[in-house]
Protein backbone atom coordinates (compact mmCIF):
# COMPACT_ATOMS: atom_id res chain seq x y z
CA UNK A 1 0.00 0.00 0.00
CA UNK A 2 1.35 3.42 -0.90
CA UNK A 3 0.43 6.76 0.59
CA UNK A 4 -0.41 9.71 -1.59
CA UNK A 5 -0.83 13.27 -0.39
CA UNK A 6 -2.55 15.67 -2.79
CA UNK A 7 -2.43 19.46 -2.40
CA UNK A 8 -2.73 19.37 1.36
CA UNK A 9 -3.54 22.69 3.02
CA UNK A 10 -4.00 22.96 6.74
CA UNK A 11 -4.45 25.80 9.23
CA UNK A 12 -5.29 25.64 12.91
CA UNK A 13 -8.20 27.74 14.08
CA UNK A 14 -5.98 30.77 14.59
CA UNK A 15 -5.66 31.03 10.83
CA UNK A 16 -1.97 30.99 9.89
CA UNK A 17 -1.49 28.21 7.36
CA UNK A 18 0.72 25.41 8.69
CA UNK A 19 0.75 23.31 5.54
CA UNK A 20 0.73 24.92 2.13
CA UNK A 21 -0.10 22.81 -0.87
CA UNK A 22 1.90 19.74 0.12
CA UNK A 23 1.89 16.90 -2.41
CA UNK A 24 3.89 13.71 -1.80
CA UNK A 25 4.18 10.11 -2.90
CA UNK A 26 5.17 7.89 0.00
CA UNK A 27 6.05 4.38 -1.09
CA UNK A 28 6.00 1.19 0.92
CA UNK A 29 9.17 -0.75 1.57
CA UNK A 30 11.33 2.23 2.42
CA UNK A 31 11.77 4.67 5.27
CA UNK A 32 10.57 8.18 4.48
CA UNK A 33 12.01 10.90 6.68
CA UNK A 34 10.42 14.29 7.23
CA UNK A 35 13.11 16.89 7.95
CA UNK A 36 12.78 20.55 8.71
CA UNK A 37 13.16 23.17 11.41
CA UNK A 38 10.82 23.56 14.37
CA UNK A 39 7.39 24.71 13.27
CA UNK A 40 7.98 23.81 9.62
CA UNK A 41 4.90 21.57 9.63
CA UNK A 42 6.42 18.07 9.96
CA UNK A 43 4.29 16.90 12.87
CA UNK A 44 1.15 18.54 11.49
CA UNK A 45 1.69 16.70 8.21
CA UNK A 46 2.07 13.46 10.15
CA UNK A 47 -1.21 14.07 11.99
CA UNK A 48 -2.99 14.73 8.69
CA UNK A 49 -1.73 11.38 7.39
CA UNK A 50 -3.79 9.41 9.93
CA UNK A 51 -6.77 11.70 9.80
CA UNK A 52 -6.44 12.99 13.34
CA UNK A 53 -6.22 16.44 11.81
CA UNK A 54 -8.60 17.24 8.96
CA UNK A 55 -7.01 19.33 6.19
CA UNK A 56 -9.07 22.24 4.90
CA UNK A 57 -8.07 21.38 1.36
CA UNK A 58 -6.54 18.38 -0.34
CA UNK A 59 -6.66 14.66 0.19
CA UNK A 60 -4.71 11.83 1.72
CA UNK A 61 -4.96 8.46 0.00
CA UNK A 62 -4.07 5.23 1.79
CA UNK A 63 -3.80 2.91 -1.18
CA UNK A 64 -7.09 3.52 -2.96
CA UNK A 65 -8.96 4.67 0.16
CA UNK A 66 -9.57 8.30 0.94
CA UNK A 67 -8.46 8.93 4.53
CA UNK A 68 -11.41 11.27 5.14
CA UNK A 69 -13.88 8.40 4.64
CA UNK A 70 -12.35 6.00 7.19
CA UNK A 71 -13.70 5.61 10.73
CA UNK A 72 -11.14 6.05 13.53
CA UNK A 73 -11.17 2.30 14.08
CA UNK A 74 -10.56 1.44 10.42
CA UNK A 75 -7.80 4.02 10.42
CA UNK A 76 -6.17 2.50 13.51
CA UNK A 77 -6.02 -0.87 11.79
CA UNK A 78 -4.20 0.70 8.83
CA UNK A 79 -2.00 3.28 10.55
CA UNK A 80 -0.03 3.03 13.81
CA UNK A 81 1.37 6.20 15.34
CA UNK A 82 4.27 6.58 17.73
CA UNK A 83 3.47 9.92 19.26
CA UNK A 84 5.19 12.19 21.70
CA UNK A 85 2.32 12.83 24.05
CA UNK A 86 1.59 9.67 25.97
CA UNK A 87 0.84 10.73 29.54
CA UNK A 88 3.53 9.78 32.00
CA UNK A 89 1.03 9.00 34.75
CA UNK A 90 -0.47 5.87 33.16
CA UNK A 91 -1.30 3.37 35.91
CA UNK A 92 -0.61 0.38 33.63
CA UNK A 93 2.31 -2.01 33.42
CA UNK A 94 4.46 -1.88 30.29
CA UNK A 95 2.85 -5.05 28.97
CA UNK A 96 -0.63 -3.61 29.51
CA UNK A 97 0.38 -0.49 27.58
CA UNK A 98 1.59 -2.62 24.68
CA UNK A 99 -1.65 -4.62 24.79
CA UNK A 100 -3.57 -1.38 24.28
CA UNK A 101 -2.15 -1.57 20.76
CA UNK A 102 -4.47 -4.52 20.17
CA UNK A 103 -7.48 -2.30 20.87
CA UNK A 104 -8.51 -1.69 17.23
CA UNK A 105 -8.53 -5.45 16.63
CA UNK A 106 -10.62 -6.46 19.64
CA UNK A 107 -14.26 -6.32 20.58
CA UNK A 108 -15.80 -4.42 23.50
CA UNK A 109 -14.95 -5.85 26.90
CA UNK A 110 -13.35 -9.14 25.86
CA UNK A 111 -10.14 -10.17 27.59
CA UNK A 112 -6.82 -10.23 25.76
CA UNK A 113 -6.35 -13.56 24.03
CA UNK A 114 -3.23 -15.61 24.74
CA UNK A 115 -2.10 -14.80 21.17
CA UNK A 116 -2.45 -11.09 21.91
CA UNK A 117 -0.34 -11.44 25.05
CA UNK A 118 2.29 -13.51 23.24
CA UNK A 119 2.44 -11.03 20.41
CA UNK A 120 2.71 -8.08 22.80
CA UNK A 121 5.64 -9.77 24.56
CA UNK A 122 7.28 -10.34 21.17
CA UNK A 123 6.92 -6.64 20.38
CA UNK A 124 8.58 -5.75 23.68
CA UNK A 125 11.39 -8.17 22.88
CA UNK A 126 11.98 -6.54 19.52
CA UNK A 127 12.64 -3.34 21.43
CA UNK A 128 14.97 -4.96 23.89
CA UNK A 129 12.35 -4.27 26.55
CA UNK A 130 11.15 -7.74 27.57
CA UNK A 131 12.43 -7.20 31.10
CA UNK A 132 10.20 -4.14 31.48
CA UNK A 133 6.93 -5.98 30.88
CA UNK A 134 5.75 -6.16 34.50
CA UNK A 135 7.08 -2.75 35.52
CA UNK A 136 4.67 0.13 35.99
CA UNK A 137 4.79 2.52 33.06
CA UNK A 138 5.09 5.61 35.21
CA UNK A 139 8.15 4.22 36.94
CA UNK A 140 10.10 3.81 33.71
CA UNK A 141 12.73 6.24 32.48
CA UNK A 142 12.00 8.43 29.45
CA UNK A 143 13.90 6.14 27.10
CA UNK A 144 12.26 3.00 28.46
CA UNK A 145 8.83 4.59 28.06
CA UNK A 146 9.64 5.52 24.48
CA UNK A 147 10.54 1.92 23.66
CA UNK A 148 7.29 0.69 25.23
CA UNK A 149 5.32 3.18 23.10
CA UNK A 150 7.07 1.94 19.96
CA UNK A 151 6.24 -1.62 20.98
CA UNK A 152 2.60 -0.60 21.33
CA UNK A 153 2.64 0.74 17.78
CA UNK A 154 4.17 -2.56 16.57
CA UNK A 155 1.40 -4.45 18.36
CA UNK A 156 -1.12 -2.57 16.23
CA UNK A 157 0.14 -4.59 13.21
CA UNK A 158 -0.72 -1.80 10.80
CA UNK A 159 0.71 -1.59 7.28
CA UNK A 160 1.58 2.08 7.84
CA UNK A 161 3.72 3.36 10.71
CA UNK A 162 4.04 7.04 11.50
CA UNK A 163 6.84 7.87 13.91
CA UNK A 164 6.96 11.31 15.47
CA UNK A 165 10.57 11.76 16.52
CA UNK A 166 10.83 8.24 17.85
CA UNK A 167 14.47 8.60 18.83
CA UNK A 168 14.10 11.44 21.25
CA UNK A 169 14.93 10.49 24.86
CA UNK A 170 16.96 7.52 23.65
CA UNK A 171 20.64 6.93 24.14
CA UNK A 172 22.72 6.31 21.04
CA UNK A 173 22.62 2.52 21.27
CA UNK A 174 18.84 2.47 21.46
CA UNK A 175 18.56 5.16 18.80
CA UNK A 176 20.48 2.94 16.44
CA UNK A 177 18.36 -0.06 17.36
CA UNK A 178 15.24 1.94 16.74
CA UNK A 179 16.36 3.11 13.31
CA UNK A 180 17.31 -0.46 12.41
CA UNK A 181 13.88 -1.55 13.53
CA UNK A 182 12.28 1.10 11.32
CA UNK A 183 14.34 -0.22 8.46
CA UNK A 184 13.27 -3.78 9.16
CA UNK A 185 9.64 -2.67 9.31
CA UNK A 186 9.98 -1.04 5.91
CA UNK A 187 11.73 -4.11 4.53
CA UNK A 188 8.69 -6.16 5.55
CA UNK A 189 6.72 -4.04 3.10
CA UNK A 190 5.32 -1.37 5.42
CA UNK A 191 5.08 2.31 4.81
CA UNK A 192 7.30 3.96 7.44
CA UNK A 193 7.24 7.73 7.84
CA UNK A 194 9.47 9.33 10.47
CA UNK A 195 9.63 12.88 11.66
CA UNK A 196 13.37 13.36 12.19
CA UNK A 197 14.86 15.99 14.39
CA UNK A 198 18.47 15.05 14.16
CA UNK A 199 20.74 15.15 11.14
CA UNK A 200 23.49 13.09 12.68
CA UNK A 201 22.07 9.57 12.62
CA UNK A 202 18.65 9.62 11.01
CA UNK A 203 19.78 10.38 7.42
CA UNK A 204 21.70 7.11 7.32
CA UNK A 205 18.50 5.12 7.86
CA UNK A 206 16.20 7.21 5.71
CA UNK A 207 15.77 6.07 2.11
CA UNK A 208 13.61 8.92 0.98
CA UNK A 209 13.84 12.38 2.49
CA UNK A 210 11.30 15.19 2.46
CA UNK A 211 12.57 18.59 3.49
CA UNK A 212 10.05 21.09 4.80
CA UNK A 213 10.17 24.80 5.33
CA UNK A 214 7.31 27.07 6.38
CA UNK A 215 4.65 24.50 5.56
CA UNK A 216 5.90 23.51 2.14
CA UNK A 217 7.69 20.33 1.18
CA UNK A 218 10.26 22.03 -0.99
CA UNK A 219 12.51 19.06 -1.69
CA UNK A 220 11.84 15.34 -1.88
CA UNK A 221 13.93 12.48 -3.19
CA UNK A 222 16.89 10.34 -2.26
CA UNK A 223 18.36 11.36 1.07
CA UNK A 224 21.82 12.31 -0.21
CA UNK A 225 20.35 14.56 -2.87
CA UNK A 226 17.77 16.22 -0.71
CA UNK A 227 20.04 16.89 2.26
CA UNK A 228 22.63 18.79 0.20
CA UNK A 229 24.29 21.87 1.71
CA UNK A 230 22.18 24.29 -0.31
CA UNK A 231 18.87 22.71 0.81
CA UNK A 232 20.03 22.37 4.43
CA UNK A 233 20.99 26.00 4.58
CA UNK A 234 17.60 26.93 3.12
CA UNK A 235 15.70 24.77 5.62
CA UNK A 236 17.69 25.41 8.80
CA UNK A 237 19.63 28.64 8.08
CA UNK A 238 22.79 26.77 9.12
CA UNK A 239 25.77 25.99 6.94
CA UNK A 240 26.43 22.31 7.15
CA UNK A 241 27.49 19.40 5.01
CA UNK A 242 26.57 15.75 5.37
CA UNK A 243 29.20 13.34 4.07
CA UNK A 244 28.62 9.72 3.17
CA UNK A 245 32.13 8.25 2.93
CA UNK A 246 30.60 4.78 2.68
CA UNK A 247 27.20 3.21 2.37
CA UNK A 248 26.86 2.72 6.12
CA UNK A 249 28.67 5.63 7.66
CA UNK A 250 27.98 9.31 7.89
CA UNK A 251 29.69 12.44 9.16
CA UNK A 252 28.46 15.95 9.56
CA UNK A 253 30.55 19.04 9.24
CA UNK A 254 29.45 22.41 10.47
CA UNK A 255 31.30 25.57 9.56
CA UNK A 256 31.50 28.94 11.28
CA UNK A 257 28.99 27.85 13.87
CA UNK A 258 30.13 30.30 16.53
CA UNK A 259 29.70 33.40 14.41
CA UNK A 260 26.35 35.06 13.92
CA UNK A 261 25.51 35.96 10.35
Amino acid at each position, binding site marked *: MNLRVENLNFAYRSGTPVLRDVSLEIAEGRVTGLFGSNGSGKSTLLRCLNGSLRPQLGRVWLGDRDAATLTPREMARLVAVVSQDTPVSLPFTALEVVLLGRY*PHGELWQADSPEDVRFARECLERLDAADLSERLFDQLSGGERQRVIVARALAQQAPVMLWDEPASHLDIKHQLELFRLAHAQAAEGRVVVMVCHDLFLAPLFVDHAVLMRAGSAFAAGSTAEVLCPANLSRAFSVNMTLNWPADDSISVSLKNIKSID
Partner: protein
Amino acid sequence: MLFLALMAAMALALAVGSVSIPPVNIVRGVLGQLNDDVTGRILFGARLPRVLVAGLVGAALALSGLASQTLFRNPLASPSVIGVSNGAAFGAVAGVLLSARFINVGYGVSTALSVAGGLVVTALVFMLGRRGRYFGHALLLAGIAIAALCSALTTAMLYLAGERLQSIVFWLMGGLWLANWRDVWLVAPITFFGLAAMIIWSRDLNVALLGERSARDLGLDLPRLQRRLLVLIALLASVAVSVSGVIGFIGLIVPHLLRLITGADHRRLVLPTALGGALLLVLADTAARTLASPAEIPVGIFTAVTGAPVFLWLLQKRRPAGGP
Protein backbone atom coordinates in the same frame (compact mmCIF):
# COMPACT_ATOMS: atom_id res chain seq x y z
CA MET B 1 -14.42 -13.10 47.33
CA LEU B 2 -15.71 -9.57 47.46
CA PHE B 3 -19.12 -10.93 46.59
CA LEU B 4 -19.05 -13.33 49.54
CA ALA B 5 -17.86 -10.57 51.82
CA LEU B 6 -20.74 -8.42 50.62
CA MET B 7 -23.24 -11.20 51.31
CA ALA B 8 -21.81 -11.71 54.79
CA ALA B 9 -21.89 -7.98 55.49
CA MET B 10 -25.51 -7.76 54.38
CA ALA B 11 -26.46 -10.67 56.61
CA LEU B 12 -24.68 -9.01 59.52
CA ALA B 13 -26.41 -5.73 58.75
CA LEU B 14 -29.79 -7.49 58.80
CA ALA B 15 -29.04 -9.13 62.13
CA VAL B 16 -27.82 -6.25 64.25
CA GLY B 17 -29.69 -3.16 65.33
CA SER B 18 -31.87 -1.93 68.18
CA VAL B 19 -33.54 -5.32 68.01
CA SER B 20 -31.20 -8.21 67.32
CA ILE B 21 -32.55 -10.83 65.01
CA PRO B 22 -31.00 -14.27 65.28
CA PRO B 23 -29.55 -15.62 62.02
CA VAL B 24 -32.01 -18.51 62.05
CA ASN B 25 -34.91 -16.10 61.74
CA ILE B 26 -33.24 -14.23 58.86
CA VAL B 27 -32.88 -17.48 56.95
CA ARG B 28 -36.50 -18.35 57.78
CA GLY B 29 -37.62 -14.90 56.71
CA VAL B 30 -35.85 -15.10 53.38
CA LEU B 31 -37.43 -18.52 52.83
CA GLY B 32 -40.86 -17.10 53.73
CA GLN B 33 -41.30 -19.33 56.76
CA LEU B 34 -41.25 -16.72 59.47
CA ASN B 35 -44.32 -16.66 61.71
CA ASP B 36 -43.27 -13.79 63.96
CA ASP B 37 -44.96 -10.67 62.61
CA VAL B 38 -42.88 -8.05 64.43
CA THR B 39 -39.57 -9.54 63.36
CA GLY B 40 -40.93 -9.81 59.85
CA ARG B 41 -41.82 -6.15 59.75
CA ILE B 42 -38.45 -5.05 61.10
CA LEU B 43 -36.71 -7.33 58.65
CA PHE B 44 -38.63 -6.56 55.47
CA GLY B 45 -40.11 -3.17 56.24
CA ALA B 46 -37.02 -1.48 57.62
CA ARG B 47 -33.76 -3.36 57.54
CA LEU B 48 -33.82 -5.16 54.21
CA PRO B 49 -34.65 -2.08 52.12
CA ARG B 50 -32.09 -0.08 54.08
CA VAL B 51 -29.36 -2.67 53.54
CA LEU B 52 -30.25 -2.93 49.86
CA VAL B 53 -30.23 0.85 49.41
CA ALA B 54 -26.88 1.05 51.22
CA GLY B 55 -25.42 -1.56 48.87
CA LEU B 56 -26.86 0.02 45.74
CA VAL B 57 -25.88 3.57 46.69
CA GLY B 58 -22.39 2.41 47.66
CA ALA B 59 -21.98 0.68 44.31
CA ALA B 60 -23.34 3.70 42.42
CA LEU B 61 -20.99 6.10 44.25
CA ALA B 62 -17.96 3.88 43.69
CA LEU B 63 -18.78 3.42 39.99
CA SER B 64 -19.32 7.13 39.44
CA GLY B 65 -16.03 7.78 41.23
CA LEU B 66 -14.22 5.34 38.96
CA ALA B 67 -15.86 6.89 35.90
CA SER B 68 -14.76 10.38 37.04
CA GLN B 69 -11.20 9.26 37.65
CA THR B 70 -11.01 7.74 34.19
CA LEU B 71 -12.77 10.67 32.52
CA PHE B 72 -10.34 13.19 33.99
CA ARG B 73 -7.38 10.81 33.96
CA ASN B 74 -6.86 11.81 37.54
CA PRO B 75 -6.93 9.22 40.31
CA LEU B 76 -8.12 11.86 42.76
CA ALA B 77 -11.24 12.92 40.89
CA SER B 78 -14.74 12.13 42.11
CA PRO B 79 -18.27 13.07 41.02
CA SER B 80 -18.21 16.06 43.33
CA VAL B 81 -15.49 17.74 41.24
CA ILE B 82 -17.93 18.24 38.39
CA GLY B 83 -20.50 19.60 40.80
CA VAL B 84 -23.01 16.75 40.46
CA SER B 85 -23.29 16.01 44.17
CA ASN B 86 -23.70 19.64 45.15
CA GLY B 87 -26.20 20.20 42.37
CA ALA B 88 -28.24 17.20 43.48
CA ALA B 89 -28.12 18.30 47.13
CA PHE B 90 -29.16 21.78 46.09
CA GLY B 91 -32.10 20.36 44.15
CA ALA B 92 -33.16 18.22 47.09
CA VAL B 93 -32.98 21.08 49.58
CA ALA B 94 -34.91 23.34 47.22
CA GLY B 95 -37.49 20.59 47.03
CA VAL B 96 -37.80 20.41 50.80
CA LEU B 97 -38.30 24.17 51.02
CA LEU B 98 -40.73 24.33 48.15
CA SER B 99 -42.92 21.63 49.55
CA ALA B 100 -42.78 23.41 52.93
CA ARG B 101 -43.76 26.81 51.54
CA PHE B 102 -46.32 25.98 48.95
CA ILE B 103 -47.79 22.58 48.52
CA ASN B 104 -46.89 19.57 50.52
CA VAL B 105 -46.36 17.13 47.71
CA GLY B 106 -43.96 15.30 49.92
CA TYR B 107 -40.80 13.41 49.69
CA GLY B 108 -41.04 12.51 46.00
CA VAL B 109 -40.52 16.13 44.95
CA SER B 110 -37.16 16.30 46.67
CA THR B 111 -36.04 13.12 45.02
CA ALA B 112 -37.08 14.32 41.60
CA LEU B 113 -35.58 17.78 42.07
CA SER B 114 -32.39 16.26 43.36
CA VAL B 115 -31.92 14.09 40.29
CA ALA B 116 -32.85 17.08 38.14
CA GLY B 117 -30.38 19.29 40.02
CA GLY B 118 -27.54 16.85 39.44
CA LEU B 119 -28.32 16.50 35.74
CA VAL B 120 -28.79 20.23 35.14
CA VAL B 121 -25.51 21.07 36.86
CA THR B 122 -23.67 18.47 34.78
CA ALA B 123 -25.18 19.81 31.57
CA LEU B 124 -24.24 23.35 32.59
CA VAL B 125 -20.69 22.36 33.51
CA PHE B 126 -20.33 20.52 30.22
CA MET B 127 -21.54 23.47 28.15
CA LEU B 128 -19.29 25.91 29.99
CA GLY B 129 -16.33 23.58 30.15
CA ARG B 130 -16.11 22.09 26.69
CA ARG B 131 -14.85 25.26 25.08
CA GLY B 132 -11.44 24.82 26.65
CA ARG B 133 -8.52 23.47 24.66
CA TYR B 134 -8.11 20.45 26.91
CA PHE B 135 -11.24 18.52 27.75
CA GLY B 136 -10.41 18.00 31.40
CA HIS B 137 -9.09 21.32 32.62
CA ALA B 138 -11.88 23.68 31.64
CA LEU B 139 -14.48 21.15 32.75
CA LEU B 140 -12.88 20.73 36.17
CA LEU B 141 -12.68 24.46 36.70
CA ALA B 142 -16.29 24.99 35.64
CA GLY B 143 -17.30 22.11 37.91
CA ILE B 144 -15.51 23.53 40.92
CA ALA B 145 -17.03 26.98 40.36
CA ILE B 146 -20.56 25.66 39.98
CA ALA B 147 -20.17 23.28 42.93
CA ALA B 148 -19.15 26.25 45.07
CA LEU B 149 -22.13 28.24 43.81
CA CYS B 150 -24.55 25.40 44.58
CA SER B 151 -23.22 24.83 48.06
CA ALA B 152 -23.38 28.56 48.80
CA LEU B 153 -27.02 28.65 47.66
CA THR B 154 -27.74 25.54 49.71
CA THR B 155 -26.24 27.12 52.80
CA ALA B 156 -28.25 30.27 52.16
CA MET B 157 -31.40 28.18 52.12
CA LEU B 158 -30.61 26.91 55.60
CA TYR B 159 -31.60 30.39 56.81
CA LEU B 160 -34.99 30.00 55.23
CA ALA B 161 -35.44 26.52 56.51
CA GLY B 162 -37.13 27.10 59.86
CA GLU B 163 -38.72 23.95 61.12
CA ARG B 164 -37.54 22.02 58.07
CA LEU B 165 -33.91 22.40 59.10
CA GLN B 166 -33.79 18.80 60.25
CA SER B 167 -34.70 17.33 56.90
CA ILE B 168 -32.36 19.68 55.07
CA VAL B 169 -29.47 18.64 57.23
CA PHE B 170 -30.25 15.09 56.12
CA TRP B 171 -29.27 15.91 52.53
CA LEU B 172 -26.10 17.66 53.57
CA MET B 173 -24.82 15.01 55.92
CA GLY B 174 -26.01 11.95 54.12
CA GLY B 175 -27.95 9.22 55.82
CA LEU B 176 -29.93 6.12 55.06
CA TRP B 177 -32.54 6.18 57.81
CA LEU B 178 -35.28 7.18 55.37
CA ALA B 179 -34.49 4.30 53.02
CA ASN B 180 -37.54 2.44 51.80
CA TRP B 181 -38.56 0.07 49.04
CA ARG B 182 -39.32 2.89 46.61
CA ASP B 183 -35.67 3.96 46.90
CA VAL B 184 -34.56 0.44 46.10
CA TRP B 185 -36.58 0.47 42.87
CA LEU B 186 -35.21 3.90 41.97
CA VAL B 187 -31.52 3.17 42.54
CA ALA B 188 -31.35 -0.46 41.42
CA PRO B 189 -31.99 0.04 37.69
CA ILE B 190 -29.58 2.99 37.44
CA THR B 191 -26.83 1.20 39.35
CA PHE B 192 -27.12 -1.98 37.32
CA PHE B 193 -27.31 0.01 34.11
CA GLY B 194 -24.13 1.88 35.10
CA LEU B 195 -22.37 -1.33 36.00
CA ALA B 196 -23.31 -3.00 32.73
CA ALA B 197 -22.32 0.04 30.68
CA MET B 198 -18.92 0.32 32.32
CA ILE B 199 -18.22 -3.38 31.90
CA ILE B 200 -19.13 -3.14 28.22
CA TRP B 201 -16.95 -0.04 27.80
CA SER B 202 -14.04 -1.37 29.81
CA ARG B 203 -11.58 -1.64 26.90
CA ASP B 204 -12.56 1.84 25.76
CA LEU B 205 -11.99 3.12 29.29
CA ASN B 206 -8.48 1.65 29.27
CA VAL B 207 -7.63 3.41 26.02
CA ALA B 208 -9.21 6.65 27.29
CA LEU B 209 -6.44 6.84 29.89
CA LEU B 210 -3.96 7.49 27.06
CA GLY B 211 -5.43 10.93 26.44
CA GLU B 212 -7.04 12.56 23.45
CA ARG B 213 -4.48 12.06 20.72
CA SER B 214 -3.19 8.59 21.48
CA ALA B 215 -6.74 7.33 22.08
CA ARG B 216 -7.72 8.57 18.66
CA ASP B 217 -4.63 7.04 17.09
CA LEU B 218 -5.84 3.71 18.47
CA GLY B 219 -9.28 4.20 16.95
CA LEU B 220 -11.32 5.31 19.97
CA ASP B 221 -13.86 8.08 19.52
CA LEU B 222 -12.88 9.68 22.82
CA PRO B 223 -15.21 12.71 22.78
CA ARG B 224 -18.20 10.38 22.40
CA LEU B 225 -17.03 8.21 25.31
CA GLN B 226 -16.45 11.34 27.40
CA ARG B 227 -20.00 12.56 26.80
CA ARG B 228 -21.42 9.15 27.69
CA LEU B 229 -19.33 8.95 30.85
CA LEU B 230 -20.45 12.39 31.89
CA VAL B 231 -24.11 11.40 31.56
CA LEU B 232 -23.44 8.19 33.45
CA ILE B 233 -21.63 9.96 36.30
CA ALA B 234 -24.46 12.48 36.53
CA LEU B 235 -27.11 9.75 36.65
CA LEU B 236 -25.33 7.57 39.19
CA ALA B 237 -24.28 10.37 41.51
CA SER B 238 -27.51 12.34 41.47
CA VAL B 239 -29.70 9.27 42.00
CA ALA B 240 -27.45 8.24 44.88
CA VAL B 241 -27.68 11.70 46.45
CA SER B 242 -31.43 11.79 45.91
CA VAL B 243 -32.00 8.85 48.23
CA SER B 244 -29.17 9.20 50.70
CA GLY B 245 -27.91 12.77 50.70
CA VAL B 246 -24.26 13.57 50.13
CA ILE B 247 -22.09 10.65 51.23
CA GLY B 248 -18.48 11.46 50.58
CA PHE B 249 -15.27 9.55 50.08
CA ILE B 250 -16.74 6.27 48.82
CA GLY B 251 -16.47 7.43 45.21
CA LEU B 252 -12.96 8.66 45.85
CA ILE B 253 -11.47 5.83 47.85
CA VAL B 254 -12.99 2.57 46.64
CA PRO B 255 -11.69 2.69 43.05
CA HIS B 256 -8.35 3.89 44.31
CA LEU B 257 -7.97 1.08 46.84
CA LEU B 258 -9.03 -1.59 44.38
CA ARG B 259 -6.68 -0.26 41.72
CA LEU B 260 -3.85 -1.05 44.12
CA ILE B 261 -5.06 -4.65 44.24
CA THR B 262 -6.36 -5.46 40.76
CA GLY B 263 -4.34 -3.02 38.66
CA ALA B 264 -5.86 -0.34 36.48
CA ASP B 265 -7.29 -2.54 33.71
CA HIS B 266 -11.01 -1.71 33.75
CA ARG B 267 -11.88 -5.24 32.70
CA ARG B 268 -10.72 -6.35 36.15
CA LEU B 269 -11.60 -3.17 38.02
CA VAL B 270 -15.23 -2.28 37.31
CA LEU B 271 -17.05 -5.15 39.01
CA PRO B 272 -14.84 -5.21 42.14
CA THR B 273 -15.32 -1.45 42.42
CA ALA B 274 -19.10 -1.84 42.46
CA LEU B 275 -18.94 -4.69 45.00
CA GLY B 276 -16.37 -2.86 47.12
CA GLY B 277 -18.48 0.30 47.21
CA ALA B 278 -21.53 -1.73 48.23
CA LEU B 279 -19.59 -3.57 50.91
CA LEU B 280 -18.09 -0.41 52.34
CA LEU B 281 -21.37 1.48 52.58
CA VAL B 282 -23.28 -1.50 54.06
CA LEU B 283 -20.60 -1.82 56.74
CA ALA B 284 -20.41 1.93 57.32
CA ASP B 285 -24.18 2.20 57.65
CA THR B 286 -24.35 -0.75 60.02
CA ALA B 287 -21.65 0.81 62.16
CA ALA B 288 -23.31 4.22 61.95
CA ARG B 289 -26.62 2.94 63.31
CA THR B 290 -25.26 0.55 65.95
CA LEU B 291 -22.16 2.18 67.45
CA ALA B 292 -24.09 4.92 69.24
CA SER B 293 -27.34 2.97 69.50
CA PRO B 294 -30.12 3.95 70.04
CA ALA B 295 -28.89 7.21 68.48
CA GLU B 296 -27.57 7.19 64.94
CA ILE B 297 -24.45 8.76 63.49
CA PRO B 298 -25.27 10.07 59.99
CA VAL B 299 -23.40 7.73 57.67
CA GLY B 300 -22.04 10.67 55.65
CA ILE B 301 -20.23 11.90 58.72
CA PHE B 302 -19.07 8.38 59.42
CA THR B 303 -17.60 7.84 55.95
CA ALA B 304 -15.94 11.25 56.02
CA VAL B 305 -14.39 10.71 59.43
CA THR B 306 -13.07 7.27 58.51
CA GLY B 307 -12.47 8.09 54.84
CA ALA B 308 -10.38 11.23 55.22
CA PRO B 309 -7.51 9.50 57.06
CA VAL B 310 -7.51 6.65 54.53
CA PHE B 311 -7.42 9.16 51.73
CA LEU B 312 -4.52 11.05 53.29
CA TRP B 313 -2.71 7.76 53.76
CA LEU B 314 -3.20 6.98 50.06
CA LEU B 315 -1.85 10.42 49.17
CA GLN B 316 1.26 9.73 51.20
CA LYS B 317 1.69 6.39 49.53
CA ARG B 318 1.46 7.75 45.99
CA ARG B 319 4.66 7.35 44.09
CA PRO B 320 6.36 10.67 43.41
CA ALA B 321 6.61 9.78 39.71
CA GLY B 322 2.91 9.04 39.42
CA GLY B 323 1.50 12.48 39.94
CA PRO B 324 -0.04 14.60 37.25
